């Protein structure tokens, strides 16, 4: 099988290399990909949408449907992870740790339980003591990562940035918290309910802006129709509509990243993972 695979791979690679002879040179401005549609985008985008960031303008305006269903795909992926893995059975065994001494208590009867306080804390079988250096560094870093994520989302339409990138940065800051502390610390602050509502809200904001444009008498996702709702500067309504859409995308992506991580690392038990 290995040898056969190698032969197939070499054949495919050879054919592709042979086919690449007809492709345009590296960085050729006259290549077919750069001469037809993209020229129109570059030359007309500012007068049509008032957005200087071409990538965002194409993403959220010219190809708005594509991005909307892309967000729906991401939402469905989060949903699929949840439905495949989430485990609602209560844990049979309970573990407690005496904080000053580090002694572990193991209760086999699920009915007996302790109230975790200053002396004892509830923990899991796979518990690993967290390192104080990693904890401290991450505690200082995480707020700055989150502010940077919000900055990236807010710059979606005027300079490099956007909802997908900002959402992923924000989600990874939450994942960093789960890695450096433990999963319970994250889920105490960002509950499962909160994440699910956020994932759905993000998609709702995107679709809602499109429907709002229909209600205002335009086409689906035609942000220019929102002008009567915005009391200032009608020239920038399209840019503001795109910003709203990017915020929706950012919220959905952030929530789904954390949902996928939390469900996979703990096999759906939400107690302790990596």
């Amino acid at each position: 099988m290995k040898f056969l695979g190698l032969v197939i791979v070499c054949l495919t690679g050879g054919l592709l290399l042979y086919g690449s002879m007809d492709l345009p040179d590296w960085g050729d401005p006259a290549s077919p990909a750069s001469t037809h549609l993209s020229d129109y985008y570059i030359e007309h985008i500012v007068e049509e949408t008032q957005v200087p960031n071409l990538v965002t303008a194409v993403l959220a305006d010219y190809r708005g449907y594509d991005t909307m269903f892309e967000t729906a795909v991401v939402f469905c992926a989060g949903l699929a992870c949840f439905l495949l893995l989430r485990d609602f059975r209560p844990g049979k065994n309970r573990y407690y740790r005496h904080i000053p001494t580090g002694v572990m208590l193991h209760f086999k009867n699920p009915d007996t339980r302790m109230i975790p306080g200053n002396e004892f804390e509830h923990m899991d079988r796979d518990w690993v003591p967290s390192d104080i250096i990693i904890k401290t560094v991450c505690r200082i870093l995480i707020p700055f990562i989150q502010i940077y994520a919000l900055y990236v989302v807010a710059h979606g339409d005027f300079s490099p940035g956007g909802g997908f990138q900002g959402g992923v940065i924000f989600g990874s800051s939450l994942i960093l918290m789960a890695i450096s502390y433990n999963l319970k610390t994250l889920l105490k602050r960002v509950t499962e309910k909160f994440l699910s509502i956020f994932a759905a809200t993000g998609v709702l904001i995107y679709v809602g802006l499109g429907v709002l444009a229909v209600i205002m008498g335009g086409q689906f996702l035609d942000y220019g129709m929102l002008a009567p709702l915005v009391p200032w500067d009608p020239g920038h309504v399209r840019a503001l509509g795109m910003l709203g859409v990017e915020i929706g995308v950012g919220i959905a992506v952030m929530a789904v990243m954390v949902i996928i991580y939390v469900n996979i690392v703990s096999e759906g038990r939400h107690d302790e993972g990596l």
Partner: protein
Amino acid sequence: MNELLALIVAKYNFWLYIILMMIGLYAMIAKNNLMKKLVGMNIFQTAIILFYVSIGYKHGATLPIIQGGHGTHDAVIHAADYINPLPHVLMLTAIVVSVATFGVAMALCVKIYQRYQTLEEDELRIRLSEK
């Protein structure tokens, strides 16, 4: 020989991506472990993403963000001054979808491991035929 060398230099991006893509394809065909197959799929996707982004590049062009585009803008915009935004847009969404599909695939792997206690394909086949 010199002609071939000139050809490779002009299109070295495609050569690199095809080699990367073939590494991913080989991992998907020949590896026995499902996780390794997934890693191969991710390498393959990354090669495609790099391929698209390299198509968007133009010599002597800058980022696809219009300079002085804030507020009123009267100067004529030349398409040759900015790199092609379309491949970037397509790949931006493709990256996110690849992460999402990777998450679903890993969830399936976790489920398979919980049920059959293995991720090796030949062992899986034996366990499947037992039941």
